[in-house]
């Protein structure tokens, strides 16, 4: 089984298991970012946007083992 490399920017990291800002997500089959968040127990609304392999993607984009996913918390401003 491969892994998806996940990193989380900003305050939403506190809602992720272990509050890890970088972790590997085991992926035995492709799934959407939204599905991955569901499995992690994170409300997808806590993520503002995502980059997959450096390209901006929606939360409904399908990811698979070997992908690098960067998840962004919504900025709060001053």
């Amino acid at each position, binding site marked *: 089984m491969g892994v998806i490399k996940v990193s989380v*920017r900003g305050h939403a990291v506190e809602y992720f298991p272990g509050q890890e800002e970088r972790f590997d997500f085991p992926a035995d089959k492709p799934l959407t970012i939204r599905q991955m968040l569901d499995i992690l127990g994170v409300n997808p609304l806590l993520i503002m946007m995502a980059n997959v392999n450096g390209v901006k993607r929606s939360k409904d984009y399908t990811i698979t083992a070997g992908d690098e996913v960067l998840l962004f918390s*919504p900025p709060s401003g001053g």
Partner: protein
Amino acid sequence: MNGYAGHILRVNLTKRTHTISPLPEDLARDYLGGRGFVAKLMWDEIPQGADPLGPDNKIIAAPGPLTGVFLPGSGKLEFGAKSPASGGYGDSNIGGHISPEIKYAGFDALIIEGVATEPVMLVIEDHNIEIRPASEYWGKGALESEAMLKNDLGEDFQIATIGPAGENLVYFACISHDFGRQAGRTGVGAVMGSKKLKAIAVKGTKSVPLADTKATIEVGKKMFEACFEKPGFEEWTPQGTAGVTDWVNEVGAFPTRNFKSGYFPKHQFINGEQIVTQIKVTDKACYSCPIPCGKYSHAKTPKYDVHVEGPEYETIALIGGNTEIDNIKDCAYANYICDELGLDSISAGNVIGFAMECYEKGVIKGEDIDGRTLNFGSVDDFVWLANDIAYRKGVGNVLAEGVKTASEKFGEDTARFAIQVKGVEWSGYEARYAPAMMLSYITCDVGAHHNRSWAITYDVASGRDVMEGKAQRTIELQHIRPLFDMLCLCRLQWVELGFELDWYPQIFKAVTGREFSFEELLGFSERIWNLTRCYSLREIEGFGRSFDYPPARFMEEPITDGPTEGKFMPRESIDYLLDDYYKLRGWDNNGIPSQAQLSKMKLEFAEPVIAPLRK
């Protein structure tokens, strides 16, 4: 004292005198700096009952112990004064470069008192202090006068100015600096205007003692490196805070049409991507910042051709959504007009949205505004009214005192949709379906401002129908975020990049030699939260619980459309939140700190003032 410049500058504009005195050790020890100094000096120095726009009010400007130190985001300054908008405690934070300059000039606080007879500016060059005539700058825009002063005094002066709105005592006039940074809230610009103080110009060449220079450099360097290594570091800068626009619509919290709705269908035309693709010239940072959130922009159409820093998210929300201006160039143009006039763009967007609804409902009639129009979506209407507010013309003169006062004058149930708390207009998050965010706004010590506690993601995570736990979280944030304003640091490295809070006690120790855990530092912040409450209790007759409610629109009118359609927060829910909040804070049912709480906070000096207010 390590970390401090060691002096306070007091300027009396009536007498045209100044004194330089040593920074009292107990002030630094117990109140740290920045917002802490502002709150304590306001309590001690401004006579009870002072007219906010009279000679007895004072402007306090205070950097913090970490200001100007080599670490990420050490360029913030706290301005404070009794607020003309609320009549109570007021402060506002500004970035740019002036805070380190004040410190390098040798000062931990400026106290400006009295009133000049003619327009003046305060010129500080290290310990050489001059009050100079400023008539040639009076009447000029905030941006224009800063450019003139840079030209006249020299590029290496850091300059804070007011625009016509401040000169004309508009209750939401801001103090402007660095061509687009503002101490925007609570009307501090009007207090400057009331003193006929057009500008503060500062140049400093001194150094500040550090407890451990080597450790300061080492920890500061590590802090920068830790920022650079954060996931998504590079992606933060291009859009800055404007990047959140789509998300706020996704969660139905975007102020739209004077807060009737939480969703603006055209939000994609005013979001961060539009800034990047249509108007951005470059990124712009405050002193020592690795993540520049400022977007210096150029908006050009056949009608206008302006350069402006922004719009950042709050301006997009209040000018874009709230008045329904639906393209980024027009938002940037309206932003520029506010900046040049010296109007807080948050309150300006809120006030003009309110006026547009009054016009729609026939409360403001065509004949009241010389046959002009005040339509949602019209940047022309926004601009003429912004000008009339700044120059206090016609209906603009009424609106210049904010939506609370205007609604009292207009009557006809307009208070229902005057979106403010404590006289200060609500900023960029609709909170009818976000209890922690709602509580953050209604209990914020300066009025309806987001920056003390930004809790909307907590609402999303913990359940937007859930009331339990919201007070606890709000209080935690109300201690963490204002601590940054005491140290005078930018909090965006923490909140946006996820920069660890543990860094701050380390650098605080290296700079000051004082060792605290982060929790202990939060204790200072809690003390100030109680002190600012006491200040407003002292100054505002009848202040207490009744000042902590949102407008009726939020308690009675369902959101009209979007993801939160149909939601509102009934008064019973607000009561639940407030009861919980007061209990956790050690305040009574009317929001008054108990004697035990004041004692715990080492604020016994406030007890004689507060005791008679308890029932």
